[in-house]
């Protein structure tokens, strides 16, 4: 559900503004709103000085963020003690925060640049590592030659004849006055050293040009030395680079542990000060008084009043504005659901938040999403694997983290997969039936394809009718006529289904005529209340129900893949090879079984279900003072 909000107005003498802002920032439950301009009340535009100050603080905050990223300091909220320190800080502490942000970011940037440049150099040198190994031996022979010239080349040779052809070509050019040393590289190419008398150097250079043979290009700084000298130097440099990288990584760890807490503190100070400047700009002022408007969860209005009473003088008043004085669409949104549904808020949050006053679909998603997932995957074996995966993700995850939410969602999906697995009698496809004599408690979906299709469509109908009913509730708040139109649409969808079922004699045929008659009567009502496009929308809704056939299609495909995997054991000659292939196939099917039902269950919710009632466009609740991790909600 969406937590009910109250709009409050805080007023007092102008001299108290600073103390009030301090108190509000410490409590961190008020989402600020611009007060409506009235006669005598002005929202003062920021002065150039405060604009400049904000820019400077934002730049420092950006530096702090960069430094935290470079040093891999986690951006977790401050402890309550740390937050209290931030709240009590003055100008000196702020200057210290700015200095810390700049100083640490300078150091971190220097470190990151050095690490980056060494990593780049290391990567380049590592490309030559194979050459070091191969040419190390080959070049040893070059040392024994006096007045000799060496040419090092790499050739892409598919067979040894290539080398023979090269030798023959060289022989034709300069007779027997050469020596050829070669070794195959791990990549399959051949590293080749051609040794010739010094007097033949230019001739060989010309010959190489004509045959497209190219000497190995050495990296910058080594070109002048020749391969014989360059290779030991490059090997030595690579060792140095690797040692330096290790020492820099250690330096980064030391810097992160020594400066991390200070950096987090500085970041909190800076973001709080920026928030404070923004709050000041959002407060309305008269000649002697100030006005601050904002939103607070209804149940916390009393808490806000008591806090301000304690922290400020009695001349500051807090008034809750009547519901008639504000519009729903301006209120910020906080999703607040029971613990069991909360992980599924992550699915709703992938879309823009619902508007205040509309319906939060989280509880419905929490029921239908894992149900559709289980209907599709429905297998005891895969369900157990999924439960194991959920457990692995859950262990070591932090409370309220995305990882914890994903683990809990997977847990719910695994539960439904196990339930439907038992109902379908599936354990890794038909393996349970073949080995353990497992029988379906409900129906075998690999055989009963049509009943499975009927089940998928029936569930789709229920889901769509639920969506349409929620649409009626949402529409009722805006206009009764619109709500009536949506109600008629629900009736017509139901009647179309009844008429179809009666036509195919699934329901008694006697239902057909009354259903059609009522449909004909309801049709003009629908057009009058919902407009000329309503019949098209009605057809689209029927199409939406058909879209749930995907549950059956994907489910059947999933069980068939599992059955094919099991058949591999006996069909590949060797039992061991067959079992290995079956295992691989089951793993692939499991991976598909994770991905495909998720995507399609999401789509059924986002397109078919949400489309009937969801009103996106809500503003996220961002309490003043919440940026440093303080505040009621975060605490």
């Amino acid at each position, binding site marked *: 559900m969406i937590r009910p909000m109250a709009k409050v107005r805080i007023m007092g003498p102008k001299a108290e503004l600073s103390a009030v802002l301090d108190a509000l920032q410490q409590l961190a439950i008020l989402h600020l709103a611009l007060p409506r301009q009235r006669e005598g009340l002005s929202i003062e535009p920021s002065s150039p000085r405060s604009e400049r100050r904000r820019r400077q603080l934002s730049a420092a905050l950006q530096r702090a963020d960069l430094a935290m990223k470079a040093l891999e300091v986690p951006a977790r909220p401050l402890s309550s003690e740390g937050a209290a320190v931030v709240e009590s800080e003055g100008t000196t502490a702020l200057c210290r925060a700015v200095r810390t942000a700049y100083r640490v970011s300078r150091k971190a940037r220097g470190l990151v640049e050095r690490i980056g440049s060494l990593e780049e150099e290391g990567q380049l040198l590592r490309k030559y590592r194979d050459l070091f190994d191969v040419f190390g031996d080959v070049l040893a022979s070059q040392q024994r030659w006096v007045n000799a010239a060496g040419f090092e080349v790499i050739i892409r040779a598919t067979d040894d004849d290539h080398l023979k052809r090269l030798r023959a070509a060289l022989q034709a050019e300069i007779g027997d006055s050469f020596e050829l040393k070669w070794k195959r590289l791990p990549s399959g190419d051949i590293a080749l050293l051609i040794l010739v008398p010094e007097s033949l150097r230019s001739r060989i250079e010309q010959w190489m040009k004509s045959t497209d043979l190219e000497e190995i290009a050495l990296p910058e700084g080594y070109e002048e030395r020749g391969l014989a000298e360059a290779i030991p130097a490059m090997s030595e440099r690579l060792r140095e680079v690797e040692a330096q990288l290790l020492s820099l990584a250690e330096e980064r760890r030391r810097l992160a542990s020594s400066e991390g807490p200070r950096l987090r503190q500085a970041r909190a100070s800076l973001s709080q000060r920026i928030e404070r400047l923004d709050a000041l700009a959002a407060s309305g002022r008269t000649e002697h008084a100030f006005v601050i408007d904002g939103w607070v969860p209804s149940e916390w209005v009393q808490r806000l009043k008591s806090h301000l009473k304690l922290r400020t003088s009695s001349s500051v008043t807090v008034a809750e504005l009547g519901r008639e004085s504000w519009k729903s669409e301006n209120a910020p949104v906080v999703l607040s659901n029971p613990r069991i549904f909360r992980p599924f808020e992550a699915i709703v949050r*992938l879309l823009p938040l619902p508007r205040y006053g509309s319906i939060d679909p989280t509880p419905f998603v929490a029921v239908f999403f894992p149900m559709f997932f289980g209907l599709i995957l429905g297998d005891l074996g895969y369900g157990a694997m999924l439960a194991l995966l959920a457990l692995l993700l859950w262990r070591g995850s932090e409370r309220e983290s995305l990882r914890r939410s994903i683990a809990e969602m997977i847990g719910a999906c695994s539960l439904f997969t196990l339930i439907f697995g038992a109902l379908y009698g599936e354990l890794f496809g038909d393996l349970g039936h073949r080995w353990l004599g497992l029988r379906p408690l409900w129906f075998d979906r690999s055989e009963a394809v049509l009943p499975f299709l009927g089940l998928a469509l029936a569930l789709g109908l229920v889901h769509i009718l639920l969506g349409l009913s929620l649409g009626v509730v949402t529409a009722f708040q805006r206009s009764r006529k619109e709500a009536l139109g949506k109600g008629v649409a629900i009736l017509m969808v139901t009647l179309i289904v009844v008429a179809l079922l009666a036509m195919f004699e699934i329901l008694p045929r006697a239902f057909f005529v009354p259903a059609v008659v009522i449909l004909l009567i309801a049709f003009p009502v629908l057009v009058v209340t919902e407009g000329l496009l309503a019949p098209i929308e009605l057809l689209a809704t029927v199409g939406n129900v058909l879209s749930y056939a995907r549950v059956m299609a994907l489910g059947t495909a999933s069980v068939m893949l599992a059955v094919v995997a099991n058949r591999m054991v006996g069909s590949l000659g060797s039992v061991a090879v067959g079992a290995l292939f079956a295992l691989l196939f089951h793993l692939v099917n499991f991976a598909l079984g994770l991905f495909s039902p998720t995507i399609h269950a999401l789509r059924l919710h986002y*397109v078919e279900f949400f489309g009937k009632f969801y009103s996106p466009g809500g503003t996220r609740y961002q309490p003043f003072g919440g940026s440093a991790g303080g505040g009621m909600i975060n605490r």
Partner: protein
Amino acid sequence: MEILWLSLSAALAVAIPAIATAWAQSRIGPATAAALAEKPELSATAVILVAIPETMVILGFVVAVLIMLRAGG
């Protein structure tokens, strides 16, 4: 002879929408990837856009199953 035509129809019922889906997704995929690079908050929209054409092949599969059931019956 009838079984041949029914089998061919079932195969085409899957094959043609599969090609259509593949073509549509080949267009949508790069476009959504580019959009996500600039606006990661559009991930839900991206999922919807990529999954929409799959409806064709899924319904094609359902039709093929119905044809095959007729062939079996």
